[in-house]
């Protein structure tokens, strides 16, 4: 299912499909958040923002919701409670 990274829930694994280089901080790319790599939501901070991801199996980082909104993803697995 196609969506954006800010809408993922804790435990969701998704594939980065596309994003706008001009909107995304370059540092995020360097951390491995690139089209074709997997991201997984580890935690969401109280009040829903920022979001804490595992990127490309091993890069642990947190970004704000508004940045996550600019990352298009495709959900691979979603956690069922």
């Amino acid at each position, binding site marked *: 299912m196609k969506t954006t990274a800010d809408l993922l829930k804790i435990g969701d694994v998704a594939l980065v499909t596309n994003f706008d280089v001009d909107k995304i901080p370059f540092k995020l790319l*360097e951390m491995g958040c690139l089209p074709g790599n997997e991201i997984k939501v580890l935690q969401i*901070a*109280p009040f829903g*923002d920022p979001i804490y991801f595992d990127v490309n199996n*091993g890069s642990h980082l947190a970004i704000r919701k508004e940045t996550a909104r600019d990352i298009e993803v495709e959900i691979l697995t979603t956690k069922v409670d």
Partner: protein
Amino acid sequence: MQNINVALIGNPNVGKTSVFNELTGLNQQVGNYPGITVDKKIGFCKLPNNAKANVIDLPGTYSLNASSVDENVVIELLLNKNDKLYPDVAVVVTDVENLKRNLLLFTQIKDLEIPTILVINMIDRMSRKGISLDITFLEEKLKTKIVLVSTRKKIGIENLKKAIVEYKSIPTEPCLNASSIDVEYFEKLKKTFPNQLLYKLWLVITQDVNFSNIERNEVRNSFTKSNNELKRLQQKETIKRYQFINETLKKGLTIDHSKATDLHSKLDKILTHKIFGYLIFFGVLFLIFQSIFDWSSVPMDFIDSTFADLSLYAKANLPKGVFTDLITEGIIPGIGGIVIFIPQIAVLFLFISVLEESGYMSRVVFLMDKIMRRFGLSGKSVVPLISGTACSIPAIMGTRNIENWKERLITILVTPFITCSARLPVYAILIALIIPEKRILGLFSLQGLSLMTLYLLGFFMAIFSASILNKVLKFKSKSYFVVEMPHYKIPLPKNIGITVLEKTKSFVFGAGKIILALSIILWFLGSHGPGKDFKNAQQIIEKEVYSSDIPINPSVIPDRVSEYKLEHSYIGTLGKFVEPVIKPLGYDWKIGVAVISSFAAREVFVGTLATIYSVGSHSDEETTIKHQMKAEIREDGTPTFSFATGASLLIFYAFAMQCISTLAIVRKETSSWKWPLIQLVFMSGLAYISALLTYQFLK
């Protein structure tokens, strides 16, 4: 044989500094890069076969695409072959658990064709995480020498030293063929500059740093592309590098997830929990403040009394004269005023470095970001605001990792409101004077509560000003925020020890120089004066006493002479000059002098009063500063430090911008005089008005 130059390079949080500490021990020198306030750490290390190395610990960086002054330093050194420290060999430090991401920087360094050793650190965690490595395969594929290291278990350092000695045998082939990023563009580049390394040229084109020996304009003029195009190419480069890395690690690194224990995510769940997370954070803060005031008081009292004794001893044993006066009234109290800070500074830096090394600080950033944003700050502002309780200077330098300029500027502007350690002695002595030593409910000391109130006052003023600035400042900047959440680690005592030592040392010598110089100047200004009044003080007072209608005991003469001299000294003249401005705040001219001299640095306040009062009394008994202050009376016989005056001073010091070093650092970090001047005027204006209101209400 010449020393081998070794550059230590790595991402933040990979244990690069631990490797540096293991290699060099205490043979370290911390300096500054010319013109910028980035720490330059160089160490010295003995190697096998009688070889020696100069090791430079470069600032942590995620890549060679620099986005801060700290990161620029790395590129500038690696591209400048004429630099005295240009490395013979680069040592890239990586964390075995983050190898994939860490290798990005490695491949970039490799492409500069410098002999490069790959250190894989924290191998003691491999078995716990179920990680295994195929070293032979990785060495071949990455064209490098790999050294496995655990600084925690002290494994591999000797192998690293051996590898450094044999650096000439390391291949210098690049990992990525730069031309593959954009064949046509790079071919043209190659034709124009056949003698230059392609990747180096690429960095010259894309990076905004100072290059000394490459004609950057020449390169740029003939090869301009729009920023967007360049960015797209950089993205392509990054994707290509990751493809190479992912492919290499697919064979070179295997993780058996069944063996991995997952303490990490359990800790994360608790520490970032919506209730426990905040409770733990406030618990940690409480512990920090408790220990700063409690644990430090014993050594501080000891230092205070030692210096009082020392002064007394010097006075008794040195021959009488100007030089002795300078030592006992100027230098010894001056040095004492610096040394007394050491316990608190050390305890504070101890906590801050433990919080950072353990990885907890990033969780606080994550937890606080949403809340801080309401005030125009960032989650990352929490760290400067906490370390601002030690000193604003490192705190303001610590704002460099805040990506958003508006959030960073607001953090810089409000940080000086946070009660720094320099205010502490001022608070401590004034509270001791005006607040009775009572306990509320038999538990909380009234003095302790007053101190806490002042800390809270500073904090709320910082937050309040931030939200005003947030409304006033009109910047359009994107809210970039990327924070790495490193693995939890038990901090290494050696690292913590070295950090605390270094920070304390730089505080003592940095601030110490100013305090010492000022106390000598003050002593001079207080014991010399213009005009006849100062010179003939003895005769004037004697005449006054003997010609008085009411009989006066001649034994008061020496005290009166000292008083009179002080009043007519240079400093007294200055104090009298400003008296009309500060009188409405409840201060006399002596306090005025102390306030003026503390515009350079707040902590000078207590020392100044001490110098003024001890110059002003002829007595040989050394009494503590507190006693002298308590004994001061106004012309009408009431004590100088009444409740209203004390409270007004406390409020003044809580808000006033009195630190030249902070203004200098703000000027540097914002590259304009505008912001430090706004800070100075706003904070000092606020301080004056609040102190005025306080005194007028309480009088």
